[in-house]
């Protein structure tokens, strides 16, 4: 735009009149339904907006009180603990994305084996978890984690030969003692979300693998490189640039995975599996604390912005190494 600096802004706007005509309808509606709520949210975040204000929208200005309440865990809701929720959210995201990526790549590599039969058929079946609407999958998994009659405990019982009664969704205790902050419900949520998410990484990795010419592997074979060497020296470096955007997307998705957490464990027991987006929902429904919820939403927004900037930087940094 530097070369246009001698033209006045008004002149520029006039020249591009047609462009604005095209944008106008969506800009007006977007302004009303996206931008205005965000501005309204910023205002609400500094007020004590609650249920009574739905009829009389003149709440009191309370300054930073909502933010202070959130950061000091003073929000009047059961098991509200911002810092535990945030920490759990980070652990949850990395555990999931790590498993998605490793399982996805392992299956993609397996499906990329030359002369393997039934590849197409396998691929079609393996993407089923992605095709099922996620909220329905989450509800099904909740049923399967039932302590007495759920499929998971039944199958474990028949494999091990004795009755298995893992309290997947009811016990706040941790099955692995060192990871004392991760209750059984975390593993139930994790299994559900790994099931939901591995097909996406598999499909992306498959696409990336297909772009690697097979001659490279043949040349490596002649040079006496073993399977391990081929994977770490050829496959991984060559699919990395295609995987990174998918991993970034996976991080944001998992960080905000409302359906799995809310429908499988409900954030419980005792708030041990709460993540930020499920907490945000509970502040509105049933909480009715619209002012606090607005402040909470803004905090979530800035956390996400931070994550995006960090992952973007890591992506760029690793790209320059290739």
């Amino acid at each position, binding site marked *: 735009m530097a070369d246009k600096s001698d033209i006045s802004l008004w002149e520029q706007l006039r020249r591009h009149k047609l462009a604005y005509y095209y944008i106008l309808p969506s800009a007006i509606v977007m302004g009303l339904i996206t931008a205005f709520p*965000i501005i309204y*949210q910023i205002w609400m975040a500094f007020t004590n907006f609650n249920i009574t204000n*739905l009829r009389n*929208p003149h709440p009191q200005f309370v300054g930073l009180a909502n933010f202070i309440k959130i950061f000091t865990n003073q929000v009047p809701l059961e098991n509200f603990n911002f810092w535990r929720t945030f920490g759990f959210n980070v652990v949850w995201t990395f555990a999931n994305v790590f498993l998605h990526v490793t399982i996805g790549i392992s299956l993609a590599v397996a499906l990329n084996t030359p002369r393997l039969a039934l590849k197409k058929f*396998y691929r079609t079946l393996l993407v089923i978890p992605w095709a099922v609407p996620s909220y329905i999958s989450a*509800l099904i998994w909740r*049923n399967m984690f039932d302590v007495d009659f759920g499929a998971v405990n039944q199958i474990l019982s028949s494999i091990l030969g004795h009755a298995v009664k893992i309290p997947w969704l009811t016990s706040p205790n941790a099955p692995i003692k060192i990871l004392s902050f991760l209750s059984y419900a975390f593993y139930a949520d994790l299994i559900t979300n790994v099931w939901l998410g591995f097909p996406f990484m598999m499909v992306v990795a498959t696409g990336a693998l297909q772009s690697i010419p097979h001659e490279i592997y043949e040349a490596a074979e002649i040079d006496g490189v073993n399977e391990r060497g081929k994977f770490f020296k050829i496959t991984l470096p060559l699919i990395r640039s295609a995987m990174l955007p998918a991993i970034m997307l996976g991080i944001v998705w998992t960080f905000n995975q409302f359906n799995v957490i809310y429908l499988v464990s409900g954030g419980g027991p005792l708030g041990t599996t709460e993540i930020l987006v499920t907490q945000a929902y509970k502040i509105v429904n049933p909480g009715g604390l619209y002012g606090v919820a607005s402040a909470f939403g803004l905090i979530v927004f800035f956390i996400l912005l931070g994550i995006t900037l960090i992952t973007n930087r890591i992506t760029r940094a690793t790209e320059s190494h290739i």
Partner: protein
Amino acid sequence: MKRHIIERLKHLYIHAYIILWIVIAIFPVIWIVSMSLNPIDVLHPTTLQIIPKNATLSAYIKVLTRPYEAYPVSFGKLLFNSLFVAGGTALLSVALASTAAYAFSRFKFPGREIGLLGFIVTQMLPATATLAPLFVILTLLHIRNTLYGLIVAYASGSVPFAIWNLKGYFDTVPKELEEAALVDGCDRNQAFLKIILPLSFPAIAVTFLFGFMNGWMEWMLAWTFLTKPENFTLAMTLYNMQGQWNTPWSQFAAFSIIISLPVMIVWYLLQRYIVSGLTLGAVKG
């Protein structure tokens, strides 16, 4: 010969690994099918058979005749509500997004970069983070408890993605086609309506279906905004079934299958576009 045997063994091992994951991938689906055919409303199929003893379609008949236990709302009404909301969302997003995407694709104008960046930023906000202001604004406008309010709320989430998706496709349509039309005496609007839109039909169809599927499956905003059972959608009703103290499991399973089957069919048809759309957005975003 020896090499051949080694490859065979390797393939056997790979088949076993893949089949293990296929079993994991399809087990919940088999479980739900089995549950839906079960004659008794129990929490689980009594044995691990795909088709249980005395298999019956009565659960399907039950949910199709009286899907919502506590209130006499018909399946047809719920289906109509879901179609209305999903169709309305899809139509509104395509109508709004196609013109904006055209401008972003073809014109350089002040505010273009900020506009595109703004769309990405709004994409990043999860629905629950903006729930409070949406709830309040729609309440104050007296449309919160209606299907129209829901369409507006859904469109606010799907328009940014629709713009990205369509802009990506418009970028691939050669500019020369429009320039030729402009030389022949078309104006910009005619070029857009008669050349770009028909040529972009596949992208518009895909964008429409994305919006449709989102509206069809969403339950969280609907559950928060709507209180009258005659406005309920299929997705809400399914969620409500699980929320009851005594969940009718066979009916729940049958209902899940009825709702997700169309989505799965559309998903398999659109698979290619879903993958490319997501990775495109991710690379550019």
